[in-house]
């Protein structure tokens, strides 16, 4: 592949010729990646759309009939879809808000010069290296009845929650799922926000100090607005990720007690119930939901992905 991409050398003196050669080279260098991405992203999604328009026999392999939008209508009129939809957004709303608040606070801490900052940075980064499944197991051990640290401490102190089967009740189970997510992914939000924090110039702060602004005033009137693009960017990445949540509820509750996410519902129909058409329709609905949210973010979010992409030019 490497040798094929060498362009025919044109005279380096002719700029337009070199331009054309450069564009040709650029095309040859990106084409393999774009072809692969078309094969592993566009083709499967196209095929999923086709599958979602058919009904497949559970008993006889290969037997199917075209049913149009029936699978979508069935999904959109089912309480399961809307329950999963609601739970996914509840999870995303809770976890992303907490991650942004905590992440901003962490970023502010990491931006201070104090002894132990390097240690703090390492410690904060550790949960990021944990695979999500292990993060789920870790928090399961924390909240397991009798065995868990949190349940034990709560019951020793006589506080409510000590004798609760956390993963057995909706609100409590959702709290554990959110905590496991916040634990693992806040470092990501913090580092993006920290990068935004570090490009705010020291002069800006000095000017504010000269004007006699208090620390809080400086934070609200200077730091936060200048930090907005970084926070929005962290919010976009975290929201897109939270809306496709699967691993955490899969390990912690298997979707029981009303914690099933959109991805889990589609997975269950497809793998456990062998309903290929219905499962594909749910996958496409999940996909469309996530894409609509990202478009809304990009349109109204302020700091946006398209600007970043444009700047790359």
């Amino acid at each position: 592949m490497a040798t094929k991409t060498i362009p025919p050398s044109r005279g380096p003196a002719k700029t337009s010729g070199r331009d054309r050669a450069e564009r040709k080279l650029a095309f040859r260098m990106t084409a393999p990646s774009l072809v692969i991405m078309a094969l592993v992203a566009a083709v499967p999604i196209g095929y999923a759309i086709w599958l979602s328009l058919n009904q497949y026999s559970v008993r006889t392999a290969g037997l199917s009939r075209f049913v149009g939008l029936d699978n979508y209508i069935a999904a959109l009129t089912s309480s399961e879809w809307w329950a999963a939809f609601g739970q996914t957004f509840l999870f995303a709303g809770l976890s992303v808000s907490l991650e942004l608040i905590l992440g901003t606070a962490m970023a502010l801490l990491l931006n201070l010069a104090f002894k132990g900052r390097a240690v703090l940075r390492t410690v904060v980064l550790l949960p990021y290296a944990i695979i999500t499944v292990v993060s789920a197991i870790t928090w399961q051990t924390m909240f397991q009845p009798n065995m868990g640290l949190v349940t034990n401490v709560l019951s020793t102190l006589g506080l409510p929650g000590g004798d609760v089967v956390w993963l057995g009740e909706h609100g409590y189970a959702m709290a554990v799922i959110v905590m496991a997510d916040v634990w693992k992914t806040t470092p990501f939000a913090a580092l993006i926000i920290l990068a935004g924090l570090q490009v705010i110039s020291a002069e800006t702060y000095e000017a504010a100090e000269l004007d006699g602004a208090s620390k809080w005033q400086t934070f609200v009137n200077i730091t936060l607005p200048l930090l907005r693009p970084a926070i929005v960017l962290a919010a976009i990445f975290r929201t897109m990720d939270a809306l496709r949540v699967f691993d955490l509820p899969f390990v912690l509750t298997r979707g029981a007690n009303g914690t099933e996410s959109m991805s889990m519902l589609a997975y269950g129909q497809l793998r456990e119930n062998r309903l290929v058409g219905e499962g594909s329709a749910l996958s496409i609905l999940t996909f469309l939901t996530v894409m609509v949210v990202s478009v809304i973010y990009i349109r109204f979010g302020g700091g946006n992905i398209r600007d970043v992409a444009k700047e790359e030019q």
Partner: protein
Amino acid sequence: MSTLTAERTTPELATARRAPKRRLRGESKLHPLVWVFVVAVMAFSLIPFYWLVNTSLKKGASLSKGELFPSQPTLENYLVVFQNPEFLLALRNSVIIAVVTTTVALVFASFAAYALARLKMRRKAMILTLILSVTTFPAIAIAAPMFSIWREIGLYDTLLGLIIPKLTFALPLAIYTLTSFFKEIPRELEESAYMDGATPFVAFRKVILPLAVPGLATTAILVFISVWNEFLLAVTLTTSPESRPVPVAIAFFSGTSEFDQPLGTISAASVIITIPLVILVLLCQKRIVSGMTAGAVKG
């Protein structure tokens, strides 16, 4: 966004580069409340680790009572894990899948990223947006059709059948991270190569690639972690221990018998696969931070 990208900084580089002595002299003058917050953040990050290790060292009554410090710490759970052939197979599968996927993604991405970072090209913004948006696709939309296609053509429940769809997310991640690394390399170096009559491709191979080794290494780490971590494709497209990677094996891990409380062994398995990743973070902390923010802040 321009404020973020105008000056290409990673948290690590920024502190190193600008670290004004003035500010450092003011260190440890933190308000006591800020210290409380520092300690709280550290506790929140570390205590769950402690509890996972703690749980992995206990069995029987000590486990079910939830002792804060194991009264009779035992490595038995670890022995059970290492004697479990399915866990060892899963480790092998994960290593193969992650290494192959990362290598393939990096090879293709380095070409694409160079073109996107340096060469004149039509519709560059559109291509970058497209690549970035693929990384946000919900994996179920790929897993569902792949499940059907692979069962038709016999790739279901094979390592290759998992490596291919993992590229859906690994390749765009690699392209994006590498693009921002390539942009950091000073242009003058290529210009002088052009002066010597080199074509853009020769400049890429002889000048840029050698300089980009740190960026390639960072990208490899990030892609490796992300492939290692991925769960939905893995659980949808595999069914037997021969092709299951670690996250799936752990999620379905059960005790030695159905009367056994498996949480001890599951915790031990979790600790075992976490240790290499923790070491990786400790050794390559700066790289990981710069890669995460490069891929993210730059796009």
